[in-house]
């Protein structure tokens, strides 16, 4: 069991983080905290991707003949997940930007970011 956790600790970190994020998104009453939860959720996935691309002792994936005469995949980290996550980060930033804009609009309209108070105001 300990081996299982230690050998794949990157996955466990991502699972814990994603659960924290999920909890924030679902259980928090404050919309800003929900947004923070959402960000944690997104970033945990990004961490997950990055960790699957990493290799112990690997270097940047630019072929360097001085490292080893023949090209060995082991010497280089897998660049693809990192590249993908670059895009995912952009997406995350855009989503956060829009979320903040919406929050400003909501705050202006209701004077609060507490979900129950907004719902109360909507009922009237």
């Amino acid at each position, binding site marked *: 069991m300990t081996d299982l956790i230690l050998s794949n600790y990157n996955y466990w970190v991502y699972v814990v983080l994603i659960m924290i994020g*999920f909890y924030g*998104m679902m259980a928090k009453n404050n*919309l800003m905290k*929900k947004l923070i939860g*959402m960000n944690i*959720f*997104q970033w945990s*996935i990004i961490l*997950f*991707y990055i960790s*699957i691309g990493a290799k112990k002792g690997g270097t940047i994936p630019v072929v360097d003949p001085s490292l080893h005469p023949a090209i060995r995949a082991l010497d280089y980290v897998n660049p*693809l*997940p990192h590249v*993908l996550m670059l*895009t*995912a980060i952009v*997406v995350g930033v*855009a*989503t956060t930007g*829009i*979320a903040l*804009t*919406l*929050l400003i*609009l*909501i705050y202006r*309209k*209701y004077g609060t970011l507490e979900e129950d108070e*907004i719902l109360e105001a*909507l009922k009237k």
Partner: protein
Amino acid sequence: MMLHFPVLLVVVPLVMSFFIFVFGLFQRRICFPLTLVTLAACLLFAGGSFWTVLSTGQPVHYHLGAWAPPWGIEYVVDHLNGLVLVGLAIVALLAAIYAKTMVEREIPVAKHAPFYALYMLQATGLFGMTVTGDMFNLYVLLEIASFSAYALIGMGEGAAPFAAFRYMIFGTLGACAYLLGVGYLYIITGSLNMADLQQILTPLYQSQVVSVGFAFLLVGTGVKMAYFPVHTWLPDSYTLAPSSVSVLLAPLFTKVGAYVLIRILFTVFDPSFSTTLLPATQVLGWIAVAGILFSSIMALAQTDLKRMLCYLIVTEIGYIGIGVASGNRLGLTGSIFHILNDMFMMAGLFMTAGAIQAHFRTRKTDEFAGLHRKMPVTSAVLVIAGLSVIGVPPTCGFFSKWYLLLGTIQAEQWVFMGTLLLGSLLNAILFFRIFERSYFEPRPDPPHLGREPGTRFERAAMSELVPMILTAAFIILLGLFSGYIVQYSIAYAVPKGF
């Protein structure tokens, strides 16, 4: 040039969205024509690609940057998504024409340019999701479509920003689930290309990683397409969105989601995996049964026309799910055809809802008395689209239901079949209640029209009527020519496993 149509479909609206934004700063009036021209071009691109597919019988592959598929991003147009693309392009164009006066009415002048820019971005996302053959690219375009949707919905009335925020929380959850699913598949296969994935995955079907990834993918697309238990974001956000927005989003976004679901179930994974090895389609079917019943009844309970239509979207998605669940050729034909039909049906319905709200100044179905006198064309379109949703021939809604029905019978899924039939009955009650109010309770001047003193009834503009009439015409034409569509396109779109 025809060679480049698949990529132009995505890049042209993307570039144009920024140009519209910039030009809009200097000359506000240029935004609308630019939008129209771009969407017309997109229709040309979509039609051209689809025509190539139809005439050669082979899918069109497009490799971005000339990188060969497993490494580079690939855009594919085949019989399945070619059809969806053409439908998307037509509805998006009609919705844009319709939006002209609606935007002037609903959106503050200073926001016109950003509105059209977002509109283009939305189109980019939808076209991209449909045309791409790469799992991760699909995620990016899905998010482009999603966050332009959040922003567009946030422009709406009343609690729209709040609804948009809730939509965003749900939508992000869905997108992240999708991303995780892609990650799991990537871990085990090292590939992101759909066709390549299918090849690599086949020997790996016993792996738990594949199953988990598959489940994440389904949850993710389920949220985006408003599949029953995770549909909760839809009614609020689409109801409160501006009419000009809901007329684009409501018909298209969920349908593209449904298309993605079919892609994942039957292209990325082999049909044998989705239907038998892991009986995902069965599960989807039973959920769809619950969803159809639930949302039909919820729709019956609504007095707000637009909210009612929103629940109807969930019902229609349920029908598509049932076709998928039949797990045979006929059912899937019905599902694919229903994706196309539902675009037009929902476009017609949301157009009428918007026009009624704008001119009749109410969305409450109780107050529709005398509607047909004031707005004859709109109510006629409402009737045609409504009959199509109910499934009265010769409208297109009947023919997709016909295939769905045959599919359930072939699969001997009697509960699914009963749900299909019961669902259309519930829809019939829903719509005939509205028809009755609008046609048979005449009052010369409905009281709510006089509510605001000095307001005069303003007739619907030509730019609203023409798209409505065209949509209604499409609803009937799609029905009459369903044979050709099924024979020349959908027959090839159904995967080989059936």
